[in-house]
């Protein structure tokens, strides 16, 4: 134990009677030698070098510097890296936008979801499907039952077979899923010069950068910089990996007219549709955060209480002293 404290600790404990006085009297030399070795002033520096605090703090400083450098420049210091690809091939990193649902306790902005649905329906749905969202999912999120029923009834669905074994079409019900713009993938590719418009149900979860990326992509269309050539039919978007994207810019100011009077600027529409798509990807989001609050509170309380109870139960066990009282020895 003493050895682990290091030299400084020995200095502090020196006044304590480590040896019995008898030994000291008998062997003054031994003690004197020890004192000489620990009391010298040059030892302060040595003990500083040897101390654990120094070791730990220097290690932390080193690791921290490396981590800081790596974070700042994206590569380890003194280890040059060579990339086969250009950085632009990965696309620009989107900035972090202050989404209204980003906080620990924040729900989605449901008015925004409603506007976003409108943008999706009027703009995106021309090419992109939303397979995993049914009409009923909108109920109580962005629309009333009656509104959703009315919207669903505008769409014809194929159903069947009926009694004669034939398929028939009927108007949509709440249980039906969002109608796809194309019958199948081939039709979708054929209609978009070979590029498949991805399904948007999980797009926010399925792309690096999530909502920030989708927003940046929608608003990030610019003219290609000098030296960058984009093939015919493709469009330049610095946020898209590779830079050339099949989808053209679709959001322009005033494209839709929001029923609540929100000005339909490009960024407003992009923000709303991304909020809607984020909801589509995580419809459980609001409930999940509420449950998260509950779970964190409950389990914190449980942790503290169980720590207390553990100490309470172990205290007598850890602090007990066992005495052995030998029985009177009668044999000798």
């Amino acid at each position, binding site marked *: 134990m003493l050895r682990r404290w290091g030299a400084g600790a020995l200095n502090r404990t020196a006044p304590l009677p480590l040896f019995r006085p008898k030994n000291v009297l008998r062997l003054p030399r031994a003690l004197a030698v020890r004192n000489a070795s620990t009391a010298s002033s040059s030892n302060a520096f040595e003990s500083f070098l040897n101390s654990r605090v120094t070791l730990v703090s220097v290690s932390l400083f080193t690791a921290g510097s490396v981590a800081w450098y790596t974070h700042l420049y994206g590569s380890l210091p003194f280890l040059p890296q060579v990339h086969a690809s250009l950085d632009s091939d990965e696309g620009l990193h989107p900035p972090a936008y202050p989404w*209204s649902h980003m906080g620990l*306790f*924040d*729900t*989605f*902005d*449901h*008015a925004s979801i*409603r506007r976003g649905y409108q943008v999706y329906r009027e703009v995106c749905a021309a090419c992109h499907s939303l397979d995993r969202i049914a009409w009923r999912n909108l109920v*109580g*999120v*962005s*629309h*009333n039952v*009656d*509104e959703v029923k009315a919207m669903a009834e505008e769409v014809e669905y194929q159903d069947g077979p009926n009694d004669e074994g034939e398929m028939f079409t009927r108007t949509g019900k709440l249980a039906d899923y969002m109608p796809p713009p194309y019958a199948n993938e081939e039709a979708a590719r054929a209609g978009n010069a070979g590029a498949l418009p991805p399904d948007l149900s999980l797009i926010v979860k399925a792309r690096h950068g999530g909502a920030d990326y989708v927003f940046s992509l929608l608003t990030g269309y610019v003219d290609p910089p000098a030296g960058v050539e984009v093939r015919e039919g493709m469009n330049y978007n610095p946020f898209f990996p590779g830079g050339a994207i099949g989808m053209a810019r679709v959001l322009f100011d005033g494209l839709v007219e929001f029923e*609540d009077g929100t000005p339909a600027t490009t960024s407003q529409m992009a923000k709303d549709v991304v909020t809607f798509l984020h909801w589509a990807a995580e419809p459980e989001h*609001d409930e999940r*955060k*509420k449950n998260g*609050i*509950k779970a964190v*509170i*409950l389990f914190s309380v449980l942790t503290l209480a169980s720590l207390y109870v553990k100490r309470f139960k172990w205290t007598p066990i850890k602090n007990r002293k066992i005495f052995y009282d030998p029985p009177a020895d009668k044999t000798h």
Partner: protein
Amino acid sequence: MSISTTLYNTVFRRNSVFVTTVFAGAFAFGIGFDTAVTTFYDRWNRGKQWKDIRHKYAESEE
């Protein structure tokens, strides 16, 4: 008599009472905790959830 002694004598002294209190308390706590968290959550997100904005659309529909 201090509060702790009263508490001990009323609740903790008999194990049957103690256990009953714990389970009854768990039931009440479950409801109360849910309500408290929901209240906080709704207050924190006032104006954002569907139940806060649905009246705008419900009226226009009917």
